[in-house]
């Protein structure tokens, strides 16, 4: 299948700041594609170039076969945008905004349904200024979907949402994709990328440093499992001899064993053999967090 988005050597600078150094990627129809990276990595600049909202310095972009630089408004009619920063008139009502933004498409979605899905139905007559941060965010997501876009760009869509609303948003985006819409998701939340994306490009300092399925990234870059338990026994040299163990660290009573393979089962067996049966024995699977740490030497939040 030909890609619905292809980007080659995209570059964008603001004065001396290089926001996007050199970015290339492709997105296939029906995918949920994620751009994951810390704040300032250049994610927003990249997707706003794709949405014809910023002018790249150089590079080739095709979105739905169109060049955003010269076919911007034709493209904007066919895509949906939830921007990281934007606003509506203070006194516009929620339903008026949906009705207005739906008017650009001949086959707009019934906004009553969107209001219900995104949980802002009881706010339909409220003004934009009176909404909470999370309600505004859900309105913006609904607005990005009202024209039945072929591709929807969501930039930090769960900012301001509480954990329950986040989960619901993820489910709804899965459903949007299942209806045939391609989703480009920008986020600095590792768990969001891991839960939602079919493919993730890790962005750092204006470049894509790795790109794969979340599972693929984890198996290539973060194979190590961590087994954690508590005990007050001091001397545990035999733990290092368990197959697969690479490192044992102690923080007070808490022991962290790192390694690969079926670590939990082997460590558990060794513990029982030595008469230790901790109540809190558990293992932590590697996550995109570990991938990012491995790739950049930094945790994403800093």
């Amino acid at each position, binding site marked *: 299948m030909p890609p619905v988005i292809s980007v080659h050597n995209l570059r964008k600078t603001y004065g001396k700041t290089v926001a996007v150094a050199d970015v290339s990627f492709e997105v296939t129809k029906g995918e949920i594609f994620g751009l994951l990276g810390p704040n300032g990595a250049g994610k927003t600049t990249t997707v706003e170039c794709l949405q014809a*909202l910023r002018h790249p310095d150089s590079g080739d972009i095709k979105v739905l076969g169109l060049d955003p630089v010269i076919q911007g408004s034709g493209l*904007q009619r066919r895509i949906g945008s939830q*921007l990281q*920063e*934007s606003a509506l*008139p203070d006194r516009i009502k929620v339903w008026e905004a949906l009705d*207005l933004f739906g*008017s*650009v498409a001949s086959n707009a979605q019934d906004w009553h349904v969107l209001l219900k899905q995104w949980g802002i139905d009881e706010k339909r007559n409220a003004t934009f200024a009176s909404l909470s941060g999370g309600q505004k965010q859900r309105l913006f997501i609904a607005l990005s979907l009202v024209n039945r876009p072929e591709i929807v760009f969501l930039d930090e869509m769960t900012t301001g949402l509480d954990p329950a609303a986040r989960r619901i948003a993820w489910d709804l985006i899965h459903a949007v994709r299942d209806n045939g819409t391609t989703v480009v998701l920008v986020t600095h939340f590792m768990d969001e990328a891991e839960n939602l994306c079919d493919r993730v490009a890790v962005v750092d300092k204006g470049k894509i440093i790795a790109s794969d399925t979340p599972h693929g990234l984890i198996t290539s870059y973060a194979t190590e499992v961590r087994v954690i338990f508590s005990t007050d026994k001091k001397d545990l040299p035999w733990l290092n001899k368990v197959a697969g163990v690479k490192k044992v660290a102690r923080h007070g009573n808490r022991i962290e064993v790192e390694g690969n393979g079926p670590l939990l089962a082997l460590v558990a067996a060794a513990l029982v053999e030595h008469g230790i049966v901790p109540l809190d024995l558990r293992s932590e699977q590697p996550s995109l967090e570990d991938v990012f740490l491995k790739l950049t030497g930094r945790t994403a939040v800093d």
Partner: protein
Amino acid sequence: MRTLGKLTWIEIKLFLREPITVIFTLALPLIFLFVMGGVFGNTPSPDVYRGVGAMNYYMPSYYGLIMMAIGTVALPVHLAGYRERGVLRRFRASSFSVWSVLGSQLLVSFIIAVVGSILVTILGKVVYAPDWPVNPGLLILAFVMGTVCFTCFGFFLGAVLPSTRAAQGVGMLLFFIMMILGGAGPPPEVMSRAMQIIGEATPLHWVIYMLQNPYLGFEWHTNASLIVAGVTVLSAGLAARFFRWE
């Protein structure tokens, strides 16, 4: 077209939900009407008000005043605020054309100017009994030209002024200069020569002449209409040149 229609209707509702703008554009001319009408009545005097009754003079002046309030303050502040807060950016991302965004403002300006002028006319007529316009056809032409002129002037200010604050400051300054010296305040005949010269440099002065002549039954003021057309073209050109979505 559908977007233009919807946006215009929403902008009318937004205007009505913004009490300060409503007072500024619709109520202020009425306050002027009653202050000036109370002081001067409508008995003609040969020395002031172009020799006609004060209320005959002011009726078309207030039409111009409403257009000017839209063009110097209401519209630039609205547009600069939209840009500053990211509303224009949001509109653009959904492929709203510049014609829908500015076209809706032009339509709303017209509607406000018409409603405001009808209010002034009805209340003025009831209280001070000025004459009806002598040449309504040309008055309508002048009205359309004046509204388009000040709307384009508002587009120009809204395009070049970077923030709501700047638009409020510059807009208010221009508003007061034009209001007092441009012909909607004290009679021009009583002002010093310097004040008259400044007054004649304002677009409002010429818009008022263009409106007054058909209202009062004088000959169409060709120079005024040419100056107004010139200001319109210049403002529109500069607005198109400097308009930014963000």
